[in-house]
């Protein structure tokens, strides 16, 4: 049997920061992590159902670690066929029901293992993205001859950006760009500059959702089509990305500044010694013009 030529892999990275979701559940009980995961499952099922060769992966991004919800290590292809717990009675495509069950099981495990730690309250998003990239790389190596892999990553972001992950984030973004992997972002709460840059650089879509309750609709409308189909559709236009850098001394956004040629750190004011690498610089001052003395006419 000839293998299909194009495989489309969708990796969904879900931000399951327990602190944020716990607070969200208290703020807005209608939309909780359960609802969010339901919507993600709908998207995953739709993607898998579109073409036989479509593949799916789901990663949960926690404050402690990143965990693969699907495919899971415990899953063995056809072993659990006869298992009652896995089969659902509604005649669903078996792959979909298996996937849903796995995701549900894994997320329960993940959340139950949550430990409370005061110092790390940020989502490890950069790490999850890196894991996604590694997974995509592994799948691309396992392809049969003649098969092509097109992959994209969808990030569903809940909590705020963590500035400490900046370097790792940028590395991930450029690696994705090199590998032609799109990064899409669906932001639930506050705008994320890092994800805006990621989407702009890799060519993906960034969307901040006005109504969280309609998450599933947004996901299906905007993020289900792949990059080829997107050119044929009318989708939200790309937002203007603020690429201004912040100076290292005050962390203010600046448009024009001074960059040290040795360590590449950015400053808003000139100082003769770079504070990061302690290199001394000279700068030419404008020439001082001596004021001409006017001769006074002597009164006779």
């Amino acid at each position: 049997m000839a293998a299909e030529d194009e495989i489309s892999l969708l990796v969904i990275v879900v931000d399951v920061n327990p602190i944020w979701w716990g607070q969200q559940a208290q703020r807005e009980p209608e939309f909780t992590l359960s609802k969010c995961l339901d919507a993600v499952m709908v998207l995953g099922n739709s993607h898998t159902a579109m073409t036989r060769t479509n593949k799916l992966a789901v990663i949960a991004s926690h404050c402690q670690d990143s965990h693969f919800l699907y495919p899971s290590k415990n899953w063995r292809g056809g072993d659990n066929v006869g298992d009652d717990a896995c089969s659902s009675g509604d005649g669903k495509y078996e792959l979909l029901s298996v996937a849903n069950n796995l995701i549900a099981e894994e997320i329960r495990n993940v959340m139950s293992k949550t430990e409370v730690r005061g110092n790390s309250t940020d989502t490890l998003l950069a790490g999850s993205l890196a894991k996604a990239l590694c997974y995509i790389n592994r799948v691309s190596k396992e392809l049969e001859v003649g098969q092509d892999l097109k992959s994209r990553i969808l990030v569903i972001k809940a909590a705020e950006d963590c500035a400490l992950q900046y370097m790792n984030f940028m590395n991930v973004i450029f690696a994705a760009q090199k590998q032609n992997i799109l990064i899409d972002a669906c932001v639930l709460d506050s705008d994320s500059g890092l994800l805006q840059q990621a989407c702009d650089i890799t060519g993906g879509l960034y969307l901040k959702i006005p109504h969280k309750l309609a998450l599933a609709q947004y996901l299906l409308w905007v993020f289900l089509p792949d990059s080829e189909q997107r050119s044929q559709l009318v989708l939200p236009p790309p937002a203007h990305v603020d690429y201004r850098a912040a100076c290292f001394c005050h962390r203010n956004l600046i448009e024009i500044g001074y960059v040290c040629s040795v360590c590449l750190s950015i400053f808003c004011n000139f100082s003769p010694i770079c504070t990061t690498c302690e290199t001394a610089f000279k700068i030419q001052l404008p020439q001082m013009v001596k004021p001409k003395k006017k001769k006074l006419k002597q009164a006779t």
Partner: protein
Amino acid sequence: MAALSEEVLLVLKKVRQRKQDGTLYLMAERIAWSPEGKDRFTVSHLYADIRCQKISPDGKAKIQLQLVLHTGESTTFHFSNESTALKDRDAAKELLQQLLPKFKKKANKELEEKNRMLQEDPVLFQLYKDLVVSQVISADEFWANRLGDISNADPALYNNNNKQEVGISGAFLADIRPQTDGCNGLRYNLTADIIESIFRTYPAVKQKYSENVPHNLTEKEFWTHFFQSHYFHRDRINTGTQDIFSECAKQDEKGLKSMVVQGVKNPLVDLLSLEDKTLDEGYGVRTAPPSTSNANRTVKESSNAAIIKRFNHHSAMVLAAGSRKGETPTDQASETSSTDGNSKDSDFFQPPVKKVKLQEAIEYEDLQRENRIKTVALNLKKSDRYAHGPVPLQSQHYTTSQDIINSVNYIQHEMVNYKPNLTQVLSSTAASSAIAALSPGGILMQTGAQQAINQMIPTEVQGELKHLYAAAGELLRHFWSCFPVNTPFLEEKVIKMKSNLERFQMTKLCPFKEKIQRQYLSTNLTGHLEEMFQTAYSKFHIWQTRRMMRKT
């Protein structure tokens, strides 16, 4: 009438122009003619304007001289003095022949230069068309800045930068190719190039030429003598001193001898080891070595030696002429002049040349150790700055530890019994509001309404806009370069440039604006241009008021 300070070089009476009798005057910078009885010049041409002169052939009854100008017009003078007409005409012709070349070069060169610049640079050409042809600024102003660099530079330098010197072909004498013309005569074809080559290679011949022509011999006679003399022919047997070229032959001998004495500067080349060593008769057993003195030589040997000597001399002269740059007679002190036999103080430069040649032979460039540029070592003191990178500080939500514990408990409690409920994911109202937001015109689709401008405006309009920008930029550059206004020249220029800007705005910018308003969407294409002009005007206004205040 003629300026008082003009020097009159030649006056010829009885010269008719357009069937009127008159007098022809040749001055230092122009040629002029006045009718009989009048004291004012009706015809006056600067030598710089004259492209060439023509004379009527010798056999004709009318003796005429015609001047053709650069513009294409021509003026004809008829020499009607019975006795001296031919002499007059020839005198005028000779004088013009000497004077015209002097003035010709200047005018032509500038025009040529301008044409070349316009042809080479299409942007410049377009600018020229926009600004000068449509009379926004005059051609002089346009070329003022650009030609300034060229005319100031040394012409010799300029020539050398753009053109390479053409060398001399070693076979130029052979190219003359004598042809028999039927009855026992030979026809030699001499072109200007060959003559030039002969002069450059053999300065002695040039000297002879300048001495004898046109005083004793005509050019034709000179060259006939040259080809007839034994100097030119193979067998150079010096037959007395009747020939004007026998001196040249003696000089050549002297030159060759001095060249041999000098030898080659390169210490790695040993010419003496290249002597012909034949085994000769007897396979090397012959006891008496063959003598090389002239007395014992046979006629054949000596003629062969003479030919070889002449070949060597010719090649040496050609090489020397090629390396002698630009015929400057004062160029005696250069190293290269030591390669021909005619210079004096070449010994002075021997040591450096030797050293250079030795070094070249010993060292190979690519085997040297690479000289890397000295770099500064990176020594980071505060590397934690890179961890967050150039990201602005954002206010963090402050969560108390109690909040954290509460949230975590809450979520754990919620997710313990998580079961996907995929039939209740979305309500229809939520879905329809989301669809409305995502449809064209919805909340999320607002910024997409703007199309890229370059898709809405046709290409000719874009092209015109580019030309406008180039032309406006040029004018504005002239305008802004006048500030600070220090000299009266700059003051004048500033005022002129402002009027130029206004004129440009009226003649070019406003019609363009009206055109796009009539035909296309109301996109503001010219807003930026107008802003630039406005800034220039306000600067001018400020400067003007300050000047008024200073004066009062």
